[in-house]
């Protein structure tokens, strides 16, 4: 199968117009020494029906969240994706357009990005948002690059150990190129101690922490931000958009930037992507923002119009001095976020948060295991297990329940800690079933 459109007659006419007798002649500029003199060794072509069957067979070999009762979270959450998202994703105009370089051709997508930026600013309490980053991990590296230039005399980044381990790993991969050193602040009974942050922040450009944190606990976020601010470091909060109907906005407690993984708002888990990362900041950092930003202006007839703006920050103009190398971003996924958050509205977003809070509290009560930490939680609870958590997972899955994430994957000394996530898609009865299975397999 192919998606080509030329007929044999077309080809002959076109070759004649070019003045060559064969397609091969067009490739004479490729030196013979670097040409491939055989057919590509890849599997044979498939027609659409065969292709669909082959790929459906691969999909059928995965155990998805509809096939077992899943309490997996740890950064990627099984929230409900409303059908209005399909309206966005199925429109060929959104699906098959690229970056809106030509605003007259792209007013719809530009306006949608402007609306997305507004919603992210509203959720986080910030002044400016970009049009999206790759995911919740890379936006943390982006934020460090902003901090490096905003606080040029400091070469250190402080990460709370309770920050998503993958976020920390990505920051550590990027940091050597930025000329930054990374220091981690260990947790104290599941949360981060502001005094220890204050100590480390004295010579740091930025402090990154997560609310709610990766261990499921609510951090004393305002105190962490204050500790960073008093030490002259930028406070950067990594937040979950679906929590921000009930949890305070980072802008309200003094953060310079708010970043996060957008997946929970409008994207399916999709085995890790594509999703969108968001990065929002106070207006002081507008000229240091990475990536696309849409602004409002007027056309020559005085009509309201939207356009990519402040582009001199970007790689295609500022080149080696750009604020980032990002070009292709995650606009389509971000628009799914806009659709989802608009569908929920302020009431719905608060209700999602309250439902998660209610169910996590109920889980804490119903599951007959000791909670690993004392701090309050929003949608995840960590439990101590009498046998290794990975073994609990293996056994529970035999009962059709995936009970959560084994924190020992990332944290030393936590091989017996299981992180259980609940979203509004889980019910009281689902939690009862989880409690029953955990009691059975931990016996």
């Amino acid at each position, binding site marked *: 199968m192919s998606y080509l459109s030329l007929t044999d007659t077309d080809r002959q006419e076109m070759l004649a117009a070019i003045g060559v007798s064969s397609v091969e002649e067009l490739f004479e500029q490729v030196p013979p020494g670097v040409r491939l003199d055989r057919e590509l060794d890849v599997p044979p072509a498939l027609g659409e029906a065969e292709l669909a069957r082959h790929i459906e067979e691969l999909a059928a070999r995965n155990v998805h969240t509809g096939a077992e009762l899943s309490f997996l979270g740890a950064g990627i959450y099984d929230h409900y994706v409303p059908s209005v998202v399909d309206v966005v994703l199925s429109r060929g105009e959104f699906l098959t357009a690229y970056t809106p370089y030509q605003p007259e051709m792209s007013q719809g997508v530009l306006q949608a990005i402007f609306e997305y930026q507004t919603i992210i600013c509203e959720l986080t309490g910030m002044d400016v948002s970009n049009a999206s980053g790759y995911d919740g991990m890379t936006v943390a590296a982006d934020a460090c690059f902003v901090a490096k230039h905003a606080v040029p005399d400091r070469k250190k980044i402080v990460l709370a150990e309770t920050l998503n381990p993958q976020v920390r790993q990505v920051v550590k991969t990027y940091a050597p190129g930025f000329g930054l050193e990374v220091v981690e602040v260990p947790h104290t009974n599941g949360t981060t101690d502001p005094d220890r942050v204050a100590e480390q922040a004295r010579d740091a450009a930025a402090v990154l922490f997560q609310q709610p944190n990766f261990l499921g606990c609510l951090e004393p976020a305002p105190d962490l931000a204050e500790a960073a601010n008093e030490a002259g470091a930028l406070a950067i909060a990594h937040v979950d958009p679906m929590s921000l109907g009930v949890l305070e906005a980072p802008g309200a407690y003094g953060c310079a930037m708010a970043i996060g993984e957008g997946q929970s708002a409008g994207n399916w888990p999709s085995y890790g992507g594509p999703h969108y990362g968001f990065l929002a900041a106070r207006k002081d950092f507008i000229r240091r923002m990475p990536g696309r930003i849409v602004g409002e202006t007027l056309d020559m007839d005085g009509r309201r119009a939207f356009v990519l703006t402040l582009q001199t920050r970007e790689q295609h*103009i500022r080149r080696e001095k750009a604020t980032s190398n990002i070009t292709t971003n995650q606009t389509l996924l971000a628009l799914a976020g806009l659709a989802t958050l608009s569908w929920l509205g302020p009431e719905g977003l608060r209700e999602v948060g309250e439902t998660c809070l209610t169910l996590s509290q109920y889980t804490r009560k119903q599951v007959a295991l000791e909670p690993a930490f004392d701090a309050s939680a929003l949608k995840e609870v960590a439990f101590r297990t009498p046998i290794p958590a990975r073994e609990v997972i293996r056994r529970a899955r035999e009962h059709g329940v995936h009970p959560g994430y084994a924190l020992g994957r990332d944290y030393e000394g936590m091989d017996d800690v299981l992180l259980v996530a609940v979203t509004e898609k889980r019910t009281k009865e689902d939690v009862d079933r989880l409690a029953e299975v955990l009691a059975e397999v931990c016996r």
Partner: protein
Amino acid sequence: MAAAESYPDDLRYHREHDWARIEGDEATLGITWFAQDALGELVHYEAPEVGTTVTKDQPCGEVESVKAVSDVVAPLSGEVLEVNAKAVDEPEIVNEDPYGDGWLIRIRMSDPAEVEALMDVEAYKAHAAEQ
């Protein structure tokens, strides 16, 4: 409204399209008509801080239009005494009056002999015509 092309006789010029007006051991610096015309309407001027030093042939700030950004290259070395706040607040002044109200910074020269290496107006006009 952009100014008409002109290159005053009393200024000295740098090949990166900057000018200097020498007053004793001080100099006022800016970009030439040619530079502002090549960039188009300026939307931002990133100025150096007062008290910092600038070095001949090295960047000492940036000027931006919508689709371009350019270093301002220091034609002379010295300490920054003053930054033109008007050029920061209303950068289009540089387009309107590049040699007058659109000046960028004033410095105290650390090596007045550097002036000798700058072009006079005729040499600069010839240089700009080649671009």
